């Protein structure tokens, strides 16, 4: 099955079709493998089309364009003749940062930038060698330029396609050169995203859209409590529903397989499964968070320390202390969890919107008792990921169901199941203390954090000496000059599953730190911006970002009745400062007027796409700050759908002013998550400026606030 779609067909003769760009989504493996394959990523067809295989997941972050942008640049390909295909899972597509195939941690572009540059440069080298051989010239006298090869002596030219087959038989010269940044043509420029024509035509194939011949459609219900299991289920009531074919018991869930989603759902509703609710049957998030608060008095493991904190705090003219609490959060990707699998006796194929192709191959093989070589993973477009789709549960459950019924099965979760069986952003509690001297300058800072560890479940080898970096990131290293500091962590793992949620630990710790710095500034009687700047003397990059944001936002110059908040958080190697301007009505409706974001991310591949990532991450963070809270009662999640886990909408969005700080010298930072952490503190800081109320637990609706329609 080949879902390659031409832009021409998509827009049907419109003016924009002239570019002739093609976006491929290939459901049956690399259609283009074989002839003209220049390396793992690049295949040049005889007609000159450059096909680029991408082993990463596209979930809106734009990598199906930004990676080809890098390859095409070094290769001197004509970007209008570039086609992208999702590669099937394979070790050659391992993420260099993880050493396995997967997408996350804002690693894709920065992790594979050099690799993609080399892939492009190598492809160009092969094409130049092949053309040189054709012309009997030394390769040094042949130049690739914009999809063609030029003979420097005669001026003759050849299209890439004319030498593609020959080129794939050459061996790259050991010293093939990379371009210098000044020679880049696509890197650093805004390119039209290759996946967008398909996404404005309803033609992009997401996991939920996969069709396989003779496929059945299924849905499932999990045990209502975490850690519980299925005892038994009488399939008869479901089987009596027209269109239902099978009832499949799994360890912790029951699946109904039918001719379509609706009969499957009706069948599921007819069942009365018996569950073993397990040890967490009475568990609640309230009890868990209360326990976390108590654990603040325990000694933790030290994540980072410098100087004599106790001494510094003891000698301070004034100390500030506060306890903050962040709720559990669901990912709520727009496309609910789903996967399609076809498992036979000796092989398994899965079409899935996954962020974790590598681990899925491994654990899929384990779950089915097959050799990993018998597992084929096809990656579809992802209707959002945000870390949720790094988990394997939805893919594995589709595989187990398919094996049980002996047919291809598309397993679609209802929104409620998606919400209630997530791996949540950990609920977390922090106590922070700051000592101030007579001039209101910090003498020392200590923080103790309590939350569950994600890595303990996912990569236990990454937990060292009681520290899971993903639990402490965002506060364990701060750019501010703090003469003495200590950050401790008390790990408390519970039955509430936790996972990677856009920006991970930075999402709560960035808020804790930057809201608390604001409290310290207030206690010191200083302006929130000036206080931070004074502490950034040894951090010029951070100072520049903060200053850029403050100036662009007109810090301190808000109109009467409007209030500002500022914050600065470094995450994933990028430094981001934000400013919000808002007002609050008498009935606690918050109106957002403007958001300003400044970012230093080192080299940026595509500034327009980068800006879109910043906006996206801001909306994600705002939504959580206003509405986001997953509550657990009786062992299971209360919230079920968007009526109880609310989402921010278009009318509430103010304009976002963006400032990218070009920095060609620093290492490339991440893009997709970095603007989420600062938005929560800017919001609570601005709210303090507006109302004098310090919000130390979220979401804001818990405090009677709501978000109104934005106004310029």
């Amino acid at each position, binding site marked *: 099955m080949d879902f390659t779609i031409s832009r021409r067909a998509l827009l049907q003769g419109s003016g924009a079709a002239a570019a002739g760009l093609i976006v491929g989504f290939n459901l049956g493996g690399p259609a283009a493998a074989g002839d003209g394959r220049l390396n793992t990523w690049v295949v040049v067809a005889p007609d000159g089309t450059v096909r680029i295989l991408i082993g990463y997941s596209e979930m809106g972050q734009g990598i199906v364009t930004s990676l080809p942008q890098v390859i095409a640049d070094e290769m001197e390909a004509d970007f209008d003749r570039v086609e992208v295909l999702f590669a099937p899972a394979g070790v050659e597509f391992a993420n260099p940062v993880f050493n396995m195939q997967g997408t996350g941690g804002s690693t894709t572009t920065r992790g594979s930038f050099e690799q993609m540059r080399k892939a492009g440069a190598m492809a160009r080298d092969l094409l130049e060698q092949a053309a040189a051989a054709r012309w009997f010239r030394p390769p040094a006298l042949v130049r690739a330029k914009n999809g063609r090869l030029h003979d420097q002596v005669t001026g003759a030219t050849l299209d890439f396609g004319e030498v593609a087959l020959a080129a794939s038989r050459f061996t790259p010269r050991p010293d093939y050169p990379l371009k210098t940044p000044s020679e880049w043509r696509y890197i650093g420029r805004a390119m039209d995203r290759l996946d967008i024509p398909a996404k404005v035509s309803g033609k992009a194939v997401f996991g939920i859209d996969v069709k396989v011949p003779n496929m059945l459609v299924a849905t499932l219900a999990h045990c209502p409590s975490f850690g519980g299991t299925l005892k038994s289920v009488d399939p008869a009531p479901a089987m009596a529903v027209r269109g239902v074919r099978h009832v499949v018991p799994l360890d912790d869930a029951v699946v109904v397989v039918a001719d379509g989603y609706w009969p499957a759902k009706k069948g599921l509703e007819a069942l009365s499964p018996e569950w073993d609710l397990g040890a967490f049957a009475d568990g609640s998030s309230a009890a868990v968070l209360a326990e976390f608060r108590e654990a603040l008095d325990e000694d933790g493991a030290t994540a980072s320390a410098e100087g004599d904190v106790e001494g510094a705090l003891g000698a301070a003219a004034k100390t500030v202390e506060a306890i903050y609490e962040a709720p559990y959060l669901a990912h709520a990707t*727009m496309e609910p969890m789903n996967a399609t699998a076809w498992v036979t006796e000796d092989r398994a194929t899965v079409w899935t919107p996954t962020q974790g192709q590598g681990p899925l191959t491994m654990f899929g093989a384990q779950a089915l008792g097959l050799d990993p070589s018998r597992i084929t993973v096809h990656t579809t477009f992802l209707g959002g990921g945000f870390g949720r789709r790094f988990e394997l549960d939805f893919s594995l459950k589709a595989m187990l169901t398919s094996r049980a019924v002996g047919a291809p099965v598309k397993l679609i979760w209802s929104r409620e199941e998606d919400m209630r069986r997530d791996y949540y952003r950990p609920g977390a509690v922090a106590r922070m203390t700051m000592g101030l001297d007579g001039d209101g300058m910090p003498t020392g800072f200590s923080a103790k954090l309590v939350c569950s560890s994600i890595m303990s479940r996912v990569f236990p080898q990454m937990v060292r000496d009681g520290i899971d970096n993903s639990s402490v990131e965002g506060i364990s290293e701060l750019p501010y000059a703090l003469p003495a500091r200590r950050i401790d962590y008390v790990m408390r793992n519970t039955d509430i599953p936790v996972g990677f949620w856009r920006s991970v630990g930075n999402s709560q710790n960035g808020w804790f730190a930057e809201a608390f710095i604001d409290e310290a500034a207030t206690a010191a009687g200083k302006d929130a911006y000036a206080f931070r700047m004074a502490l950034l003397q040894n951090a010029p990059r951070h100072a520049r970002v903060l200053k850029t944001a403050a100036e662009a936002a007109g810090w301190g110059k808000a109109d009467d009745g409007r209030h500002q908040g500022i914050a600065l958080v470094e995450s994933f190697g990028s430094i981001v400062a934000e400013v919000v301007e808002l007002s609050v009505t008498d009935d606690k409706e918050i109106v957002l007027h403007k958001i300003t974001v400044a970012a230093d991310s080192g080299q940026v591949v595509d500034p327009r796409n980068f800006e879109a990532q910043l906006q996206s991450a801001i909306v994600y963070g705002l939504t959580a700050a206003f509405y986001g809270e997953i509550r657990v009662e009786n062992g299971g999640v209360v919230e079920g759908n968007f009526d109880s886990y609310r989402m921010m909408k278009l009318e509430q969005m103010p304009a976002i002013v963006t400032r990218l700080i070009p920095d060609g010298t620093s290492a490339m930072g991440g893009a997709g998550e970095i603007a989420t952490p600062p938005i929560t503190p800017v919001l609570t800081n601005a709210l303090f400026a507006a109302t004098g109320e310090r919000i130390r637990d979220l979401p804001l609706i818990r405090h009677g606030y709501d978000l109104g329609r934005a106004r310029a």
Partner: protein
Amino acid sequence: MSYSITVNGAVHEVDVDGDTPLLWVIRDTLGLTGTKFGCGIAECGACTVHVDGEAMQSCQIAVEDAVGMNITTIEGLLGDQRFQALQEAWIAEQAPQCGYCQSGMLMAAATLLANNPTPSDDDIADAMINICRCGTYNRVHAAIRRAAAA
């Protein structure tokens, strides 16, 4: 039961239970997957289609009630000139991110502009109640403005 429904100008006999939401008939029975499932409870707009020219959430319409209605999905608008202008505005603004909500967004925007060719910011805010988890709102807004100006 069998129901006769009109989707994208063609009449289809579908043999499903009468309470089956139009959304699932469109997706599972007719195989048109441009219309998306997001919530099933009228909260997100991912399933938006046109019913007799108006934007409606197809997860809320039982197939038995859809008989006699003129239903259009995004597939049915491809090639329509006005819709193409909208798509081009969307491309010019590079509106989508993951793209999952965008069919619904486009369907809602199409009826907004059909009924009100020069919408104010408030009109856009009133009409565009779809959820976008990727936060494309400002670019969607800009794309509607651009299409209205074209």
